């Protein structure tokens, strides 16, 4: 199995400290005071904004040896497809994984746009379909669908999109999407379907992944628990006679020593309000149930470079092959993880070729 490491791009905000939600690096927000006293000149004017910073993170991820970037779906931030397109021509080999909801519009239109992304990037575009926020949040997005229909809509979205990308003529009529004699011609035909990433920890979510996903992204959990969840999905896969890659979503906070890492994590929790007051304990060695970035992750690996690498190797040994990682600030941490953690894992994989076979 090929191992991939994806770095997450924060769509709404990023900064050095845990009050990152208030800042968009590279951009002085309207109403935000000048950062310097009057005598100190500021040459930037309004030449840059957050897109220039996102561009730096993407380049950092590529230079530091990640295999792809995931563009987070965050309704408080910039839109993931636009960000992915904006970064496409400045990156050479990164997989561009855009997270979005099936509520975004027509599945045929999404498929047709995806074909252009694939044509222009040499098939580096990938889709992560998520179910969105709470019912109230979804209504703010013009989406009034009942909770128990969300996965069915993702299913129909993928049936329709995959159908028109791979077949012509293709017809389908579902509850949410339809198409009659669809499918693409000429150079728009025969393009690769974007690699499909799905998530969720219910039996229905596993069933959907077993049918439709190339990667199922599990929430961060201790190896033994993650393995249990994967085993459940594998039963369904065997019934379908299908295979997919197992992925896991983790924040990472790695420092030269474990002590420094835990110190920085506690500072983040204190500043962000994630922690309870300094008495948090790990779930498992180096695994904490608190995030260390605004990434949506349910757990973080915190420790020395060697420890974090070793824990990630344990997930690989347990059958996981896709890692969606994040740490704040995302630029500096992309270099740090790429320089100190990923090489230890690649070295281990080279010495144990059966793991990455």
């Amino acid at each position, binding site marked *: 199995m090929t191992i991939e490491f994806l770095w997450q791009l924060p769509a709404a905000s990023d900064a050095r400290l845990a009050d990152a939600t208030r800042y968009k690096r590279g951009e002085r927000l*309207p109403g935000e005071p000048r950062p310097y006293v009057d005598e100190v000149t500021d040459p930037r004017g309004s030449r840059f*904004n957050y897109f220039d910073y996102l561009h730096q993170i993407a380049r950092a991820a590529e230079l530091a040896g990640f295999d792809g970037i995931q563009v987070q779906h965050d309704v408080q931030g*910039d839109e993931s497809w636009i960000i992915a397109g904006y970064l496409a*021509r400045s990156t050479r080999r990164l997989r561009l994984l855009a997270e979005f909801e099936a509520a975004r*519009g027509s599945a045929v239109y999404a498929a047709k746009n995806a074909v252009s992304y694939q044509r222009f990037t*040499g098939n580096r575009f990938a889709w992560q379909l998520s179910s969105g926020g709470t019912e109230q949040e979804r209504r703010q997005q013009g*989406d009034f669908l009942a909770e128990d229909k969300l996965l069915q809509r993702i299913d129909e979205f993928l049936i329709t999109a995959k159908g028109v990308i791979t077949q012509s003529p293709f017809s389908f009529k579902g509850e949410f999407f339809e*198409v009659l*004699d669809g499918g693409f011609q000429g*150079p728009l035909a025969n393009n690769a379907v974007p690699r499909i990433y799905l998530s969720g920890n219910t039996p229905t979510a596993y069933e959907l992944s077993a049918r439709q996903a190339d990667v199922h992204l599990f929430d961060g959990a201790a190896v033994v628990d993650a393995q249990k969840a994967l085993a459940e999905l594998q039963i369904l896969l065997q019934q379908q006679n299908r295979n997919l890659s197992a992925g896991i979503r983790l924040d990472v906070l790695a420092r030269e020593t474990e002590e420094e890492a835990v110190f920085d994590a506690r500072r983040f929790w204190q500043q962000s309000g994630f922690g309870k007051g300094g008495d948090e304990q790990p779930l498992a060695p180096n695994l904490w149930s608190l995030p260390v970035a605004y990434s949506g992750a349910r757990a973080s690996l915190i420790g020395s470079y060697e420890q974090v690498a070793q824990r990630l190797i344990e997930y690989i040994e347990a059958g996981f092959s896709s890692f969606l990682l994040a740490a704040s600030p995302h630029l500096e941490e992309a270099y740090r993880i790429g320089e100190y953690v990923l090489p230890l894992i690649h070295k281990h994989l080279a010495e144990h070729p059966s793991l990455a076979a």
Partner: protein
Amino acid sequence: MSIDFFWRIPTHGEPSSHRSRTPYRGDWLQGQDHIRNPGLGGGGRDGYTYIDYIAEVAHAAEISGFHGGLLPSFPMTDEPWAISSFLARETKTFRFMIAFQPGFLNPVTAARMTASLQRATGGRALFNVITGGGGPVQLWWGDSFSHDDRYARTTEFLDVLRGVWQGKPFNYQGRFYQVEDAALPFPLNEEAFPEIYFSGSSDAALISASKHADYYLSWLEPLSQLRDKFERVKARTDQLGRKIKCAVRVDIVARATEEEAWREVRRGFENLDAQQLERYKQQQARIGDSVGGQRQSTFRPKTISDYRDLIIEPNIWSGFNLLRGGQGQGIVGSYEQVAQRLDDLVALGADAFILASTSHLEEAYRVGEEVLPLVRGRQKLHAETPGLLSAVR
């Protein structure tokens, strides 16, 4: 009052001139799977794709003085949203006019996409709102709504887009869209709302355009009809207490002399094979429910044996859709004549143009260098000193 010139981006390949329909540029020509000639540099893939040629045309347009370009969307094209985001970082002034059918996107998502694109480009995104031609193609897109419902949906889409753009909780209960406390987040809501060029010739289209459009965009039609159309939409918009501008989408062939310009058209016509001409004559039957398409086809003569049969007014040729897809009528003539025709259109109410000529790369330079400098706009220089400009050139 200003006059803005836009160019058109070829989103489905490109012949090297009007003389040929063969799309040498891009991968629409069978057997040519990328831009470079097979065999060059060892013959392998070189990593370039059609977006690299589109980038060339966009740069040519911005260097030559155009505000930007229309990015058309049809079943056989690459998609404007993709192209715009891909080229955001490497263009300076080029404005991306995104053609799209509002029904294909959730309006709240579309608002966030648009504001993000404004942020990525420094405010260079605008829309060409189209509402679809109906018939089998509409079902191909996965859209089964009727003609008038599609326009009603377009209106509602733009209602919601404007509503959420204010950045304050917005509620809407429409036939097609509902939102509850929706708002574009800060600082996305600080961006300028995109200018809207609106296409559509039916009454339903005029109603929707008068409510939301900044520019009412029409294909070239015989001038008297175009004047009527512009006056109708302006009258309707006045009733709503709004102002609307008008724009014309027109193909052109401009050369130093009129003779050379017609030679391009003649060669293009003569290079058509008989089947293409036969198909063209019978096209009338399959236009879907597009009123604009029907209007174009009524200007078509019954017998066509020579390119001259398609000349319907001085310097207006109605066979452009024989040479490539899209609209039929366009302007053919010397640089002075083409500029004069554009001035005629200004005189009857046009405030903006989307011009196109094949190949879009070389012709962007030619039109920018030779034609745009001759356009007098509302200065009426032509009327006062006829022939002066042609005499000094």
